[in-house]
């Protein structure tokens, strides 16, 4: 399906070399490679972090859907992170025997490492409420920050965001709101007075569903990549990227929807029949909103604003993981501290071993894994760029120079986004960046 095979090296190049500042990276992409250099350590690092990321992600997607479908408009959602057994056991749509469309190997239920962590945390076995209050749990705040980035930036491709303003959506939401607040005159009165306020909450919940469905795909993808690596299946970074590209195309057309369950009845706020798809309505907006843009970290936002560092135009925001300085923990973008803390619990031994050998060893594992995460997300972004090129442009082994030039222009336009001084693309080209 994918055409990321490198052109034969013996052939003379059909177009002249790029003169872009990132010409080396562009040539690597044209040869079917990734923005991340193909080294054994890079491969080990990104696969290790995918595996460690997949475990909390298995919780993120289940809880996001739980909040979107069950918690819904609860005005005091104090227990929204206390996911029900039903959602912990909810079969993944793409893995396990009960899946609707089995593409990946894993099991359908929550991953055993996740269940073990939920039980014991990093302290000891104790009631769930104590784990929650002690913050000895999965940081769902990270998932919510990602969702809020998607909601906030809006309009990043696809039709999903426009649909949230449509009459059909409002009518569906209205039915669900009235059903949910049935017998609650206070909330119904509030809805009557401020309909847009409640509707905006429902729109946010639709993004909960959107992101939950996106990560439902990514969790088993990352688990399987780890398994394949353990079996000696990947020979290099491009292999890992190709696996992601293949995965993207395998589920590209899967539906993005928002269903709510009230008193056992299903309210289709965004029905599957609307035809929203995983690639265009979830994956691409997610990459744009979370990997590139996001927002200044809430703790420093006011300082950034005072210093005139927050651009007036949201499209100019570049606080995502591809730009984030993971160094001063909790600086910008999606709070990296929260994710790094989550990932830390599930690091494979070989990754821990790498971290022990560099910088301060175990003492600064959080930063080292944050930088590994940055490397891995450059690889995921490479997969998205290659998938887009594949969908919109020409194969890499095309022999028409005009087509290759069009591919070149596409790659160069993508690389232009990393010309900003804060972009980490130059950093990840060397192994010294740790």
């Amino acid at each position, binding site marked *: 399906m994918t055409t990321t095979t490198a052109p034969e090296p013996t052939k003379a190049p059909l177009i002249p070399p790029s003169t872009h500042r990132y010409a080396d990276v562009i040539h690597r992409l044209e040869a079917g490679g990734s923005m991340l250099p193909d080294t054994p350590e890079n491969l080990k690092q990104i696969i290790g972090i995918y595996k460690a990321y997949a475990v909390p992600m298995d919780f993120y997607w289940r809880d996001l859907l739980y909040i979107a479908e069950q918690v819904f408009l609860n005005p005091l959602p104090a227990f929204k992170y206390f996911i029900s057994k039903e959602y912990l056991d909810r079969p993944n749509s793409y893995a396990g025997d009960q899946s609707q469309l089995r593409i990946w190997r894993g099991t359908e239920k929550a991953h055993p490492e996740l269940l073990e962590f939920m039980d014991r945390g990093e302290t000891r076995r104790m009631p769930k409420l104590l784990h929650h209050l002690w913050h000895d749990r999965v940081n769902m705040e990270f998932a919510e920050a990602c969702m809020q980035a998607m909601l906030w930036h809006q309009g990043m491709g696809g039709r999903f965001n426009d649909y949230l303003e449509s009459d059909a959506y409002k009518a569906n939401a209205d039915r669900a709101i009235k059903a949910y607040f049935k017998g609650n005159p206070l909330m119904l009165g509030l809805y009557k007075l401020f309909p847009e306020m409640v509707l905006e909450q429902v729109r946010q919940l639709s993004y909960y569903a959107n992101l939950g469905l996106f990560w439902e795909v990514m969790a088993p993808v990352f688990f399987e990549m780890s398994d394949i690596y353990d079996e000696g299946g990947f020979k290099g970074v491009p292999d890992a990227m190709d696996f992601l590209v293949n995965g993207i195309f395998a589920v590209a057309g899967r539906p993005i929807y928002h269903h709510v369950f009230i008193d056992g009845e299903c309210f289709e706020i965004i029905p599957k029949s609307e035809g929203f798809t995983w690639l265009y309505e979830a994956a691409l907006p997610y990459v744009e909103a979370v990997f590139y843009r996001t927002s200044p970290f809430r703790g420093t936002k006011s300082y950034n604003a005072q210093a005139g560092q927050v651009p007036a135009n949201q499209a100019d925001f570049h606080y995502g993981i591809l730009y984030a*300085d993971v*160094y*001063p*923990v909790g600086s910008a973008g999606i709070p990296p501290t929260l994710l790094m803390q989550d990932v830390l619990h599930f690091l494979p031994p070989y990754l821990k071993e790498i971290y022990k050998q560099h*910088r301060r060893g175990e003492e*600064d594992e959080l*930063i080292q894994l944050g930088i590994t995460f940055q490397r891995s997300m450059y690889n995921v972004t490479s997969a998205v760029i290659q998938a887009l090129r594949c969908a919109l442009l020409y194969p890499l082994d095309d022999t028409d120079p005009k087509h290759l030039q069009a591919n070149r222009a596409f790659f160069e336009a993508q690389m232009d986004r990393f010309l900003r001084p804060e972009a980490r693309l130059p*950093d990840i080209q060397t192994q010294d*960046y740790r």
Partner: protein
Amino acid sequence: MTLLLLLLIPVVVACGLPLLPAESPWVRRLALLAALAQMSVGLLAWRTPPADLSVSWLPKLGLRLDLGLDGLSLPLVLLAALITAMAVLATPVGQSRPRLFFALLLVTNVGLMGSFLARNALLFVLAYELIMIPTTLLVAIWGGERRAGAAIRFLIYGAVSGITLLAAVLAFGWLNPGGVDFSFTDLAHHNLTLQQQHWLLALVLVAFGLKLPIVPLHGWQPLTYSQAPTPVAMLLSGAVSKLGAYGLLRFGIQFLPDAWSDWSAWIAAVGAVSAIYGALNAIAQLDMRRLVAYSSLGHMGFLVLALAAATPLSLQGMMAQILAHGLIIALLFCLVGLIETKTGTAEIPALSGLLNAQRGLPFTMGLLLLALMAAAGVPGQAGFVAELLVFEGSWVAYPIPTLVCLVSSGFTAVYAVRLFNRVGFGRLDNAKADWASTSWGERVPALVLTALVLVGGIWPALLTGWSEDATAPLALRSSDAVTVIAAAPHTSISELSA
């Protein structure tokens, strides 16, 4: 015996160190044990005051081994022993030529002890001069890139200070019609005219002004402090410089009270100029060591102001400031040295983000914040108590110089905040931040000094209790500064003993 022990312990260990193998861990341990033993003996002397020791040495020259301990010298003896111990601890484990290094540190300590214990002016000069040799060698051999220039400048200024002091002491004998035997008791009962006192005081001011130092005699200080290895900078700033203030108190206020009273307004003005000059220069520095050096210069101005005022409260504050500043400046140099060792630079523009919990030096920076706050005179720390006493005691005598010093104290907060903001906050450069965190062994000296700075702030008796009774009789003015006390300067040493 107690007084001799204070001198002999470092002498014996310094002589014994060359006998050990260079790589032996006992080289450092013995140097540390010597300083700690000396401190224990000092504490013992505080509990049970020892009798003065007087042994004839070269009677024709008037040189006697007169040793004694009173409320003025005891806290300085303890401070010197403590700073020596902390300097030994702050010496990096892989120090090159450790036997010579630690032996020279201990010889410096011997010079300090000799100066503080001496009850004979010639003996004082001998001990005072002795300090010059090891400290110059320490700077010249183990200093930074510009160590040669620093050592030569330090030597020249030190030599001028020593010769001037020797001239002053000898002049005491020549000018006295009946002659003197250079014992402090004899010097305190001289029959010099006011004009003669003026000449002698000029010499004394130059000699000890160079040691403190004060503006305009400070030319050696910023370069030497910035080039000296960390333990030596700690010792120079924390203990050796205090010898200048001690000398002004002994030779200026105690032995030449009339001339001191005459010139005290000018002396106060010099103190104020030093304070403001040091603080403003500190604000402009781009090197942490030089910043701390100028900060020290500014704080020396406070000491001079307190000496000039010479009220009971200002002298008490002066002694408290000697102790507080000794601890704080040694702590600052210790921390700056630690940062320099880890990051490879002391340049402020090259550093940022060191408070980063993961890869910075958060522990060191935390202590640096406390040390800077102490230097700025923030309440709850030793610096506040000392400065409060100095300013309150001096205000009644010289309000304008005191006001200038108060303003310069405000500037301390400016350079402290500026330093901490630039070095502690901001982005930690990933390419540079490849250093190990500090070990507990490296943290110990800074922790001990920080603890004492905090204790001094919470329990001011630690700073004032030693010398309260000893400074009061030396006051030239009453607490309201209206009455000039005439008889007090001639109080004998035995009467001064606490």
